[in-house]
């Protein structure tokens, strides 16, 4: 494709992913016994949009596959076929494949042609799974091979008029054809009103005569190409002004518009801009659809356009309707219906559809796609603003509050506004958690099928918003937890029945805001964790535990690496890796994991996460001249030790004795090689922090304040620094490093 188009590839790919996600969600929601036509249409639209985009951007393989998909969907939504489990499976496979193909296109790889062929042939097979031969599948023609039912009706009632619009590419009246001659020809048929005089070959007439369309076509066949003229039958005294909306589309869609041009069909046409021929037939009333066919026919051999007359078309109708008997009947009747009513009104079938289309259009218009870097830059700038403000406030604090009242008021206003601005900017990065939750219906469906279990998935609080960065990181651990719940938590249907529980298990995924954090819970009504089993396994693995550990401690065992109580390793779980990954990911996100379990009633795993990765609740502390930030969530307590609490372990440095525990004492000045104010722990402060490796007592000079700090990466322009997870900018504009406690614990500086 040309270079010009390639800049839109990313947009197409992004959109295609969204359509795929929509499609998948809808597919999973389909009730096989009683499929909702709306849903089928929505799936069809998603597939169709992908096809349209793929075609435009030259991704022919994607267009091909979506075409096959569309063919089958088309038959489903027309209720020619009944959806089956096989079909849903095939659709899901196709949507997976499309995802892979999109990935491949993005990375410039080739997609496995065999896989495409397999999926496609399955779709084709399903689509042709009845008396209907699947002849459309191989051809690039759109599936809208509808019989041109009912477009031949001559307007027999009086009082109407033909609106004739001529819009040729060249000024035809400058050549052989004469405007007057055409007008004269028309006058032979009836009363003619010259609506717009000829200009550049364009002209409009209103012919007050109930003549057949063919008669008009005959006249204009001598004048111009068939697609350069449109005929609209107007009922009664319809004012011309109402057709202004149609004018915009005239150029591109001229030949799709005919006497039955309805308000509804127009909307659909507007929606379809850019897709030209691929007009979705159920968004249009049958009559317009048939016009599509007529237009195509005319387009194929423009030279003979004027031979298309009433002898020709019914023949064609017979041919096409022969191949699709049921449809033909349906469409004919709906077309007739349209006809009998005043043709200014939409057919009932079409009525419901356009109502949806403008809504989705409106939604598309109210959101914009912006690169994450731009948002991050905005966040940076707002952060700067906040820092500048606090610098100003610091300078102004020495001014007399009465004399400089205005300055103080102004600064107070600035503070309020900048805080609002910061919140607003932060909210741009927030996405509903549905972006993660949305994939689980599929995961659950696939897994339950594989493991012959019955599980119902409930999603609660899908609209809860959290930072985009967190959403991405949350997806892996949640998948592990859900898999685990299905594999280990929910029992087999037989076991469940025996235990007096409903055959179908329930997994609830919920998300909610709690204070400054977000709580994501996975709750299953399965067997619960088995305390004895876990303890036995812990003993086997040699994991040290106190004599009678509390439940909470036992439950945490499942997160230990290599810990699995599954009797056998399945391809779903049992290797003891998953939960380890969960705990790592969550702690990377500065989150915490809570587990509750009641034997026989189920397990609840709660993930408590900060709202955003960009802001950290921290404690600022001083060592020498430098300021450091410690994540607040990790701080257990701070204290000033007395001499009796400090012990020296030979060769291992100092330990501090706090309430029966001996904690290693880590002097921060040694870790960061600084000149401290105090080298004696008794003079400074000890901050007890919790790490995966155990508790530590950090020895610092003093605690400064509790702050919310904006996390900045050191790696953008520098590199990773041992013991430091990032940096932030303090109120005075200086950089402070954020301490990575886990690294610190492993650095083992004593």
């Amino acid at each position, binding site marked *: 494709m040309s270079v010009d188009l390639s800049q839109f590839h990313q947009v197409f790919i992004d959109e295609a992913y969204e359509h795929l996600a929509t499609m998948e969600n809808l597919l999973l929601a389909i009730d096989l016994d009683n499929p909702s036509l709306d849903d089928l249409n929505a799936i069809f639209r998603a597939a169709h949009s992908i096809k349209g985009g793929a075609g435009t951007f030259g991704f022919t393989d994607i267009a091909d596959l979506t075409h096959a998909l569309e063919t089958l969907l088309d038959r489903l939504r027309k209720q020619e076929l009944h959806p089956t489990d096989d079909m849903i499976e095939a659709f899901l496979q196709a949507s997976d494949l499309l995802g892979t193909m999109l990935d491949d296109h993005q990375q410039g790889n080739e997609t496995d042609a065999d896989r495409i062929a397999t999926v496609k042939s399955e779709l084709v097979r399903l689509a042709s799974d009845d008396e209907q031969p699947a002849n459309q599948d191989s051809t690039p023609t759109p599936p809208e091979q509808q019989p041109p039912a009912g477009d031949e009706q001559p307007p027999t009632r009086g009082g109407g008029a033909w609106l004739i619009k001529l819009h040729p590419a060249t000024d035809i009246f400058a050549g052989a054809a004469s405007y007057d001659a055409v007008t004269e020809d028309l006058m032979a048929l009836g009363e003619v009103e010259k609506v717009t005089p000829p200009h550049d070959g364009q002209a409009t007439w209103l012919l007050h005569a109930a003549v057949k369309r063919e008669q008009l076509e005959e006249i204009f066949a001598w004048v111009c190409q068939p697609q350069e003229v449109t005929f609209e039958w107007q009922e009664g005294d319809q004012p011309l002004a109402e057709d202004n909306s149609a004018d915009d589309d005239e150029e591109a869609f001229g030949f799709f518009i005919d006497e039955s041009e309805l308000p509804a069909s127009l909307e659909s046409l507007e929606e379809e801009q850019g897709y030209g021929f691929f007009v979705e037939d159920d968004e249009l009333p049958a009559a317009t659809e048939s016009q599509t066919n007529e237009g195509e026919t005319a387009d194929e051999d423009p030279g003979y356009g004027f031979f298309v007359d009433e002898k020709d078309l019914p023949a064609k109708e017979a041919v096409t309707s022969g191949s699709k008997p049921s449809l033909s009947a349906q469409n004919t009747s709906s077309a007739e219906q349209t006809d009998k009513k005043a043709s200014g009104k939409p057919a009932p079938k079409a009525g419901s559809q356009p109502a949806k289309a403008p809504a989705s259009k409106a939604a598309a218009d109210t959101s914009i796609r912006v690169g994450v870097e731009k948002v991050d830059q905005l966040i*940076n*700038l707002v*952060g*700067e603003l906040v*820092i500048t403000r606090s610098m100003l406030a610091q300078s102004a604090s020495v001014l007399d509050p009465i004399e400089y009242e205005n300055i103080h008021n102004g600064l107070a206003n600035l503070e309020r506004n900048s805080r609002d601005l910061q919140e607003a900017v932060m909210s741009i990065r927030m996405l509903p958690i549905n972006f993660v939750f949305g994939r689980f219906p599929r995961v659950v469906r696939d897994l339950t099928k594989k493991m012959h279990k019955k599980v119902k998935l409930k999603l609660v609080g899908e609209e809860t918003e959290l930072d985009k960065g967190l959403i991405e990181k949350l997806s892996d651990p949640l998948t592990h937890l859900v898999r685990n719940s299905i594999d280990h938590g929910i029992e087999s249907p037989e076991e469940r029945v025996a235990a007096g529980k409903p055959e179908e298990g329930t997994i609830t995924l919920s998300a909610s805001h709690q204070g400054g954090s977000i709580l994501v819970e996975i709750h299953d009504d399965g067997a619960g964790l088995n305390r004895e089993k876990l303890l036995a396994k812990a003993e086997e693995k040699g994991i040290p535990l106190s004599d009678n550990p509390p439940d909470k401690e036992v439950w945490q065992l499942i997160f230990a690496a290599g810990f699995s109580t599954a009797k056998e390793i399945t391809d779903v779980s049992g290797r003891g890796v998953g939960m380890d990954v969960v705990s790592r990911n969550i702690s990377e996100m500065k989150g915490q994991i809570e587990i509750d379990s009641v034997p026989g009633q189920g397990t609840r795993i709660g993930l408590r996460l900060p709202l955003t990765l960009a802001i950290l609740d921290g404690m600022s502390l001083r060592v020498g001249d*430098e300021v450091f930030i410690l994540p607040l969530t990790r701080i257990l307590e701070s204290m000033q030790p007395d001499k009796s609490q400090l012990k020296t372990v030979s060769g291992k440095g100092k330990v501090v004795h706090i309430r029966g525990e001996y904690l290693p004492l880590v002097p921060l000045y040694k*870790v*960061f*090689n*600084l000149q401290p104010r105090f080298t004696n722990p008794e003079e400074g402060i000890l901050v007890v922090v919790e790490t995966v490796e155990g508790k530590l007592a950090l020895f610092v000079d003093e605690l400064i304040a509790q702050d919310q700090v904006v996390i*900045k*990466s*050191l*790696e*953008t*322009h*520098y*590199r*990773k*620094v*041992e*013991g*430091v997870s990032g*940096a932030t*900018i303090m109120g005075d*504009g*200086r*950089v*402070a*490093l954020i301490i990575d406690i886990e690294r610190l614990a492993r650095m083992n500086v004593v």
Partner: protein
Amino acid sequence: MNDATEEQALVTSGQQEFLTFTLGEEEYAIDILKVQEIRGYDGVTRIANTPEYIKGVINMRGVIVPVVDMRIKFNVGEIVYDQFTVMIILNLGERIVGMVVDGVSDVIALDPDQIRPAPEFGATLDTEYLEGLATLDKTTEDEDERMAIVVDIEKLMTSSDMGLMDQVVQAG
């Protein structure tokens, strides 16, 4: 000759502008397009366990940027930090780095043929990072002819010698 043709001559001759700075006795020239700004030395946060010449990081309008003292790195000049200490902020593609030098002297335009290949020795910097030597025009009659060492600053700053970035795999 009017201005337009003169300008054209400059473009076609491939003349490039350089910023010159001093380090000890030597005068260095770097591509001016790599220079983002020049500012004073202030508010540097130390980073532990780094070589002496990495002074730490500063806040450049919300971006955290490392600062290197070239005087320490190349062991020239007098290491003092006062209000006259200058820092050249370099923009090297995706990276921003601050560089402390003895002083910033001039902006000069050089023809490619004015830059002669550097001998294998004689400069504080490894020849690998040198583009060549350039003779500078005299500004006043009584001045000696000056020489500037043209440095490929991007190559220098991104090298493993400087230790400014995580080296993924050392090629070769």
